[in-house]
């Protein structure tokens, strides 16, 4: 028999970043918010206090969702059989208080105008025929101009580190001169870089490109946040991605929004609480959520407003599983659009090699110390004579290299992966071995989507989410072009030996890590007939359910999503706080 709780204003599915952001806004305005988090609680003290355990966190994924209980299935194309991702591969979503923003790489971007108005921009510049066959590219219902103030507030709240490349229209060398204008300089200066990054920057500058340091949600110096919390600057310790930060230098819900929300006394996070579905009444409005605790007891948490604040894939799945008479195919799915526009990201290292005798100190640092060029990102370069659209950021070797995560990939000149020569060679070259990488965009197609798997279930007996995804011709052509640009840079950087050059895009496979940036599935739009939510993430067919996070993205640019997820969440939180409660039956405009 289900336990029914007292009704609250807001319940969130998931206790991660966007839940904490929403709670910070809404609790301060007087609302009671409950978050249901499937994982356990964790804080800087004590849980991150001594956590440089590479085996535990990087190889054994101590902060990630427990795949034994649920995972995602995948197949390349429709009609093919799908199999579960049985062990961690392509992406690493986290669980526990703070979610994935505890172990993230803190790479922080603002998307470009042409990322937001992708469709209309490309049609205007190149004609509709330039867009790839079978695509589902859409304009976002919101643009950079509308989001800029929210991007800026996020920067101020977390103390982001970087150098502006475009400050109110003035271009600044050393920053990203391709970025949209920002109204303020970053609160903190850019992070340091390692010798490989410095070499990349010198080389690309000499080649006529415009290198800059990765903008970051990691503090480059000690800083006091807007509420008086003192946080340390980065220690460049080399244990960043997949770890919690023990000195609060890496921004997370724990450093920022959680304390603000908890301080109000109106925020509660229930741990080890697994949401099964959102319940709806006969009028089609959500009434609350059903969840299961660690002992298997079912609970019902009634609420005025339901926010889906879990990982992208889980938010889409929750919509699909929340079936009722009013929503027979799930919430938001009255027009069959939930699951459409699933996209990912092109993360590859096309070329790598050895600079003998040079130590790059790659085991230090974090994943925000790279130098980037945006000269080949998005539509920053003229595609008139090219047979593809889109682009990628190109960057130098990240830091935080751990032995366990790297020695297995090392091979000798002759391709040997073990033995005496391999050992000798590894010994000489481990810290001289680096490459040039790309982070590229991913376009949506009709044959790329999310839905429920016909065979595999989770620990609660519910169908897993199935990903149907593969690279398309545009991706291959984009990669081919960018791989050549990477090779040019790599050669100009003076590597003495190439250990790897991959000129053609490999088939998508789910077992090698790329990025934790699956996006789409519950996209925002200005047209009810063509999207699942409006620009606030409000579900068109269920005005008291909102989706947050990257499920809202119509397609994925070649940049990490968190900055834009935060800005959109701030915009939505403000709208909910100021307008939704006054007219909860209405769609916000």
């Amino acid at each position, binding site marked *: 028999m289900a336990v029914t709780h007292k009704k609250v204003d807001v319940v969130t599915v998931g206790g991660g970043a966007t839940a904490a952001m929403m709670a910070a806004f809404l609790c301060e305005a007087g609302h009671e918010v409950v978050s249901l988090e499937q994982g356990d609680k964790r804080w800087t003290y004590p849980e991150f*206090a001594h956590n*440089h355990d590479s085996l535990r966190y990087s190889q054994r*994924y101590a902060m990630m969702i427990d795949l034994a209980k649920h995972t995602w299935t995948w197949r390349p194309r429709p009609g093919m059989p799908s199999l579960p991702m049985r062990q961690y591969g392509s992406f690493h979503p986290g669980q526990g208080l703070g979610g994935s923003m505890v172990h993230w790489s803190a790479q922080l971007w603002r998307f470009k105008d042409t990322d937001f108005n992708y469709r209309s921009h490309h049609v205007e510049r190149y004609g509709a025929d330039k867009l790839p066959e079978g695509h589902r590219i859409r304009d976002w219902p919101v643009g950079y101009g509308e989001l800029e103030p929210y991007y800026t507030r996020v920067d101020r709240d977390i103390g982001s580190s970087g150098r502006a490349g475009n400050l109110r229209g003035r271009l600044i060398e050393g920053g990203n001169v391709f970025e949209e204008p920002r109204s303020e300089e970053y609160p903190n200066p850019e992070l340091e870089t390692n010798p490989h990054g410095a070499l990349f920057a010198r080389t690309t500058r000499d080649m006529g490109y415009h290198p800059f340091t990765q903008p970051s949600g990691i503090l480059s110096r000690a800083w006091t946040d807007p509420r008086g919390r003192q946080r340390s600057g980065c220690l460049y310790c080399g244990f960043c991605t997949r770890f919690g930060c023990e000195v609060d230098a890496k921004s997370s819900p724990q450093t920022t929004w959680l304390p603000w929300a908890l301080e109000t006394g109106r925020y509660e996070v229930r741990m080890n609480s697994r949401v099964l579905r959102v319940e709806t009444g006969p009028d089609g409005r959500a009434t609350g959520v059903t969840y299961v605790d660690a002992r298997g007891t079912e609970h019902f948490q009634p609420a005025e407003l339901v926010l889906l604040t879990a990982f992208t894939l889980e938010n889409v799945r929750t919509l699909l599983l929340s079936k009722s008479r009013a929503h027979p195919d799930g919430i938001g799915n009255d027009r069959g659009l939930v699951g459409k526009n699933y996209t990912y990201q092109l993360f590859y290292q096309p070329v790598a090699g050895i600079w003998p005798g040079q130590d790059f100190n790659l085991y230090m640092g974090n994943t925000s110390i790279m130098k980037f060029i945006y000269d080949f990102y998005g539509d920053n370069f003229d595609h008139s004579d090219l047979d593809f659209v889109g682009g990628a950021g190109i960057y130098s070797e990240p830091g935080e290299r751990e032995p366990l995560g790297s020695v297995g990939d090392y091979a000798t000149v002759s391709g040997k992966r073990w033995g005496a020569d391999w050992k000798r060679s590894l010994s000489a070259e481990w810290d001289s071995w680096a490459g040039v990488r790309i982070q590229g965009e991913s376009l949506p197609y009709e044959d790329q989507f999310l839905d429920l798997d016909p065979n595999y279930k989770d620990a609660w007996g519910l169908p897993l989410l199935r990903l149907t995804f593969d690279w398309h011709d545009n991706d291959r052509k984009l990669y081919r072009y960018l791989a050549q640009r990477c090779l040019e840079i790599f050669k100009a950087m003076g590597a003495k030996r190439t250990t790897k050059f991959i000129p053609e895009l490999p088939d998508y496979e789910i077992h090698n890590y790329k990025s934790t940036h699956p996006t789409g599935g519950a996209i925002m739009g200005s047209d009810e007939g063509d999207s699942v939510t409006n620009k606030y993430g409000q579900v068109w067919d269920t005005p008291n359910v909102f989706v947050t996070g990257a499920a809202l993205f119509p397609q994925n640019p070649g940049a990490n999503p968190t900055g834009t997820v935060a800005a959109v969440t701030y915009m939505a939180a403000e709208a909910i706080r100021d307008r939704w409660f006054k007219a909860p039956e209405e769609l916000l405009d």
Partner: protein
Amino acid sequence: MTNDSSLSRRRLLQAAAAASAGLAGCGPDPHAVPAEDIEATAFGPLPPQEPPLCRLYAFFTQEEAETVDAIAARLVPGTPDDPGAREACAVTFIDTKLAQFTDYDQPTYDHAPFPVEVDDEPGEQPGATKEIRVNKDVLPRHGFQSSLDPQAAYRNGLPKLDEYCTRRFGGRFTALTERRQDTVLEALERGDAGFDDPAPDDFFEMLRDDVLAGVFADPTYGGNRDLIGWRLIDYPGPQRAYTPRELRRGTAKRPQTLRDLHPTHPGHPNPDALHVMSGTRQERR
């Protein structure tokens, strides 16, 4: 109605009341966290307090351990002057892992249906419960899909490896010359060794991954004795911090292990719990 794992002002206030009572008396400081609890909430068992003794096996039989040790000595060869996986006690790392975990040492979804590879291109097969057919060229793209857990893989694989060695060269792996041992490992790596469950190339990759972990993981897990692995690649182990100057120029820091890395601020109270536990809103400086 809140359960034990909820954070809420009310529950933390109750805890604070209990804690203050403790403070007032001579009970332990409620904010001090015992070392063994620091990672207790993370997924999976804690690392062992002391590294396990080299060559005392909890999972392997003596014979199994000798075979794995011999394999390790070929994958990362060594001599007393230039030590490798045998000297690093990689076999103890692997043994500890197999003994400590019931099956996998990482989150693993191990439910049926499991794939069976076929030449043709099967469809979705809804309702498949035990097996599901997948084209043989597509299957590798799905990554790990075995129904054999690591313990079973070793238990099954090692005798099959010895049978292969005997068929090919007239003796078990440990009885062969180094050259022949390498030939056998190359055959395994190619998937060319005439056995299954585990498939020889899957078995090879598992051995290689485990031996490398046995050489390069923190010594607290049983391998990497005398920091053999880290000295090989000039890696100073888990340090607390590097300065920007070190990031640019390199470090003179001596190698250290996890046990040498002291927690930051041991006993430091959680500022958020403390804030709420006070019962009143603290003044912000």
